[in-house]
C-alpha cells in the first residue's frame, strides 16, 4: 500500500539528488518539491497539536516562508520525539513491546530506527527537506509503536491490580522508578536491575548491546529474565531486589568489568591512566566510566570533587602565577601581563582637575572681585630688624695726611684715656653739619607754621672780613663812585707817630731807622741760645 507520504517520498527520491542540479533554479524541480512537501506536511498535521497552519501554503510564497512554516510545525514535534527516543534509550523493552504488538515486518523499521537514531545524533544540521521528512516519518512511527506498547502494558497491569491504580498512578511504574533510583545510588549492576523489571525482549537486549557494547552477555541475562518472567510480578521483584542488595559485594562497587567500552571511552580511560595517580581512583573511574547509564548523583559529586582536588594539587605543584608571587619586576613576568590584571595602587598625585565651564566661570568671578577690591596678595618683604647700629664706614683717604704721625697717635691716646676732650673726628664733623642743617630747616618750618614769630637764634660766628669795598660785596655792578672800604681806617693801619715816605726821609732819619733795626736785631740774636756756640767751642777745645 502506498500512502500519500510514501508517494511523496518516492517522488522526491526520483528527483535527481546530485548537487549540481540544484545550482540553477528550475521551475519544475521547485514545483515537484513543493508538492511533495505539502503532502508530507499534511501527513504530519494530525500528530502536531500546536501548528497554526492547516496546510502548507505554497502558492506565491518564498522558499524562506515555506521553510518557516515547516519549521513552525516540526519544532515542537522534534522535541517531543526526542523525548520519546530518550525514553526508549532508557527502556528498550518498550520498543520491544511496540514490536510485539506490531507486526514482524516492523523489525526492519526498528532496525532502521536504531541506525537512524545514530544518524540523527550525528547529522544535526541538514537543510534539505528530505532528511527532515524522513526523520519525522520514522519518529512518528516509532511514537505510534511506543504508545501502543504502553497502552498494552497499562491494560495488563490494570487487569491484575484493582482499585488503587488508575491510568495516572501506576504502582508498578512507581516501584520500577524507585528501584532504578536505588540501583543508581548504590551502583548495582544495571543489567540486574533490568532483569528485575518486567518483560524483556532478547532482541532488544541484543540490539542494545550491539549498539553500545563490544561484548555480549546475552545468555546469562536472558536466562535470568526468563526465570523472572515466570515469577509473579511483585514477588519476583522483591526477591530479586533483596538478592541484589543483600548480595552487594565489593565487586559490585569496585568491579573491574571491562564491559561497554566504546572507542571514546577507551581513550578517556587511557587519558585517565596518564593523569591520575592512585589505582583505586583509577579503578573507580574506569568502573564509573564503564557504566553505561551514567553515574549516580553521589558518584557524580565524588567525581567532581576528585577532579577539583586534582586540579588544585596540580596548581600547587606548578610554579605560582606571577600575581601570587609577591614582589615581581617586569623581567619576571610576561610582556604586557600587567595590563590584563586589574592593578590597584595608591595615587600620590591628586588627579588633574577637569576644566569645565563652571570652573572657568568661578575663576573669572574670583579674578574680577579681586581686581575690584584691589586684594592682590602681593608678596611683601619682611622687615629686617637691624640688631646692630650701622657701622661707621671709614673711607680710605687717598690724600697725604695733614697731621703728622705723632699727632695721630696723640689723638688716639687722648681718645683712649679721655674721650670727652678728644678732638672731633671726621664723622663728628659730619654730624655737626647735619645737625646744623636740620636746625635751619626746623626754624623755617616753625616760622611758617606758628602764629607767633620767633626770631632767628643768634649764632656767634667768627669770620674773616676782607677789606673789600662794601659796594663790591653788596652790588654786582661795579660803580666807580664809592670806594668806601669795609674796614675802618684805624683797622687798616694803627700806627703812631710821624710817618714819612722813603723819598721824604732825610739822612738823619735814615740813620735813625738803621740804628733801630740794628738794635732790634741784636736783641733777637741775644735771645737765641748762646750755649750752642759755647759747647761748640768746648768741643773744639777737647778735640784738639
Amino acid at each position, binding site marked *: 500500500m502506498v500512502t500519500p507520504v510514501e508517494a511523496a517520498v518516492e517522488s522526491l527520491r526520483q528527483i535527481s539528488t546530485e548537487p549540481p542540479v540544484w545550482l540553477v533554479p528550475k521551475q519544475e524541480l521547485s514545483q515537484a518539491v513543493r508538492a511533495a512537501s505539502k503532502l508530507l506536511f499534511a501527513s504530519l498535521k494530525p500528530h502536531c497539536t500546536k501548528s497554526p497552519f492547516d496546510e502548507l501554503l505554497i502558492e506565491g510564497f518564498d522558499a524562506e516562508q515555506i521553510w518557516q512554516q515547516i519549521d513552525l510545525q516540526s519544532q515542537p514535534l522534534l522535541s517531543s520525539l526526542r523525548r520519546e527516543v530518550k525514553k526508549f534509550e532508557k527502556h528498550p523493552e518498550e520498543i520491544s513491546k511496540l514490536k510485539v504488538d506490531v507486526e514482524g515486518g516492523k523489525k526492519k523499521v526498528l532496525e532502521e530506527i536504531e541506525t537512524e537514531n545514530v544518524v540523527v545524533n550525528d547529522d544535526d544540521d541538514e537543510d534539505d527537506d528530505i532528511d527532515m521528512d524522513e526523520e519525522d516519518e520514522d519518529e512518528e512511527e516509532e511514537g505510534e509503536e511506543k504508545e501502543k506498547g504502553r497502552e498494552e502494558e497499562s491494560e495488563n497491569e490494570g487487569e491484575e491490580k484493582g482499585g488503587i491504580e488508575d491510568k495516572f498512578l501506576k504502582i508498578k511504574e512507581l516501584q520500577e522508578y524507585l528501584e532504578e533510583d536505588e540501583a543508581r545510588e548504590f551502583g548495582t549492576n544495571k543489567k540486574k536491575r533490568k532483569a528485575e523489571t518486567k518483560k524483556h525482549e532478547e532482541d532488544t537486549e541484543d540490539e542494545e548491546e550491539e549498539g553500545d557494547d563490544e561484548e555480549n552477555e546475552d545468555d546469562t541475562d536472558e536466562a535470568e529474565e526468563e526465570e523472572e518472567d515466570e515469577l509473579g510480578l511483585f514477588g519476583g521483584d522483591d526477591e530479586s531486589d533483596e538478592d541484589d542488595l543483600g548480595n552487594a559485594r565489593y565487586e559490585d562497587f569496585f568491579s573491574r568489568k571491562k564491559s561497554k567500552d566504546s572507542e571514546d571511552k577507551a581513550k578517556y580511560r587511557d587519558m585517565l591512566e596518564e593523569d591520575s595517580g592512585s589505582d583505586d581512583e583509577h579503578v573507580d573511574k574506569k568502573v564509573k566510566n564503564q557504566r553505561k547509564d551514567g553515574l549516580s548523583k553521589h558518584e557524580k559529586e565524588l567525581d567532581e570533587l576528585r577532579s577539583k582536588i586534582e586540579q588544585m594539587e596540580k596548581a600547587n605543584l606548578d610554579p605560582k602565577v606571577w600575581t601570587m608571587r609577591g614582589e615581581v619586576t617586569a623581567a619576571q613576568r610576561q610582556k604586557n601581563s600587567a595590563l590584563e590584571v586589574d592593578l590597584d595602587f595608591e595615587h600620590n598625585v591628586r588627579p588633574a582637575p577637569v576644566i569645565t565651564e563652571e570652573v572657568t566661570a568661578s575663576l573669572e568671578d574670583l579674578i574680577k572681585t579681586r581686581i575690584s577690591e584691589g586684594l592682590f596678595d602681593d608678596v611683601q618683604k619682611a622687615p629686617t630688624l637691624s640688631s646692630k647700629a650701622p*657701622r661707621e664706614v*671709614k673711607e680710605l683717604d*687717598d690724600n697725604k*695726611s695733614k697731621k703728622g704721625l*705723632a699727632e695721630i697717635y696723640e689723638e688716639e691716646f687722648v681718645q683712649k684715656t679721655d674721650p670727652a676732650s678728644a678732638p672731633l673726628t671726621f664723622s663728628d664733623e659730619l654730624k655737626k653739619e647735619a645737625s646744623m642743617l636740620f636746625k635751619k630747616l626746623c626754624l623755617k618750618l616753625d616760622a611758617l607754621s606758628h602764629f607767633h614769630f620767633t626770631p632767628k637764634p643768634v649764632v656767634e660766628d667768627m669770620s674773616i672780613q676782607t677789606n673789600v669795598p662794601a659796594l663790591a660785596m653788596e652790588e654786582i655792578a661795579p660803580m666807580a663812585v664809592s670806594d668806601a672800604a669795609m674796614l675802618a681806617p684805624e683797622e687798616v693801619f694803627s700806627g703812631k707817630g710821624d710817618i714819612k715816605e722813603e723819598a721824604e726821609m732825610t739822612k738823619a732819619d735814615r740813620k735813625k731807622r738803621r740804628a733801630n733795626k740794628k738794635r732790634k736785631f741784636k736783641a733777637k740774636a741775644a735771645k737765641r741760645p748762646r750755649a750752642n756756640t759755647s759747647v761748640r767751642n768746648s768741643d773744639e777745645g777737647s778735640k784738639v
Partner: protein
Amino acid sequence: MSIEASATMEIETVSSEPKPESNPLPPKPKFEPLKAHEMSDGRVQFRKVSVPPHRYSPLKKYWMDIYTPIYEHMKIDIRMNLKARKVELKTRQDTPDISNLQKCADFVQAFMLGFDVPDAIALLRLDELYVESFEIKDVKTLRGEHLSRAIGRLSGKGGKTKFAIENATKTRIVIADTKIHMLGSFANIKIARDSLCSLILGSPAGKVYSKLRQVSARLAERF
C-alpha cells in the same frame, strides 16, 4: 744666779761685744740710676748718624726743627759734622735717661731715611714705634721695566696708593727707589708690609684697597 746672769750677760756681752768691736756695716747704699753722663765710667755717650747726600739740603732746611726737640726736650747735644757728613749726638749731664740718646739717634736716622720731621718726631714721643725697611728684591726679583712698574704700583698715581696705605694703617712709608721704609707700631707695620708686598707681587690696587678697608674697619672697631 750671778753665774747665770754672768752667763747670760756673757752671752749678751759676747753677742754685744763683737758689735762694738767691729765697725757697723755701712747702710745699704742706695744707688740712683746712672745718668747717661756717668755711664762707662763717666765718659760721654756718643751717637753718630751719617747723612746721605740727598738728605743734605733737607737737613739744612729742617735743622732747627730737628735741633729744638732734641736739645730742649730730650736734653741731648746734637751737632752736624760737616766734614764727616755726620750728625753727632752726645749726652749732657742733665740727660735724664740713657734711652733719650737712642731715641734721638733713631729720630735722626728716621729723618735720614726720608721721613718727615713731624712723622719722625713720633719716635721721640712714643716708645713702641719702629722703623722697618726692606727691599723689593727681597719680595720678588724684578728687573728693568718690571721693577719700575712695581715701584709705580706701590706709590700709585700721585702717591695715592701709598697715602691710602698710610692713612689706613697709621704708618708712614718712604719708597726710596728699591728700598722701602715703614714707620709705625709693630702691628701696623705688619699690615702695611703685607699690603706693599701684595702690590709688589702684582695684585691690583683695588684689591689692596678693599683689604685695607676691612683692616681699617677692624682697627677702628678695636678702639
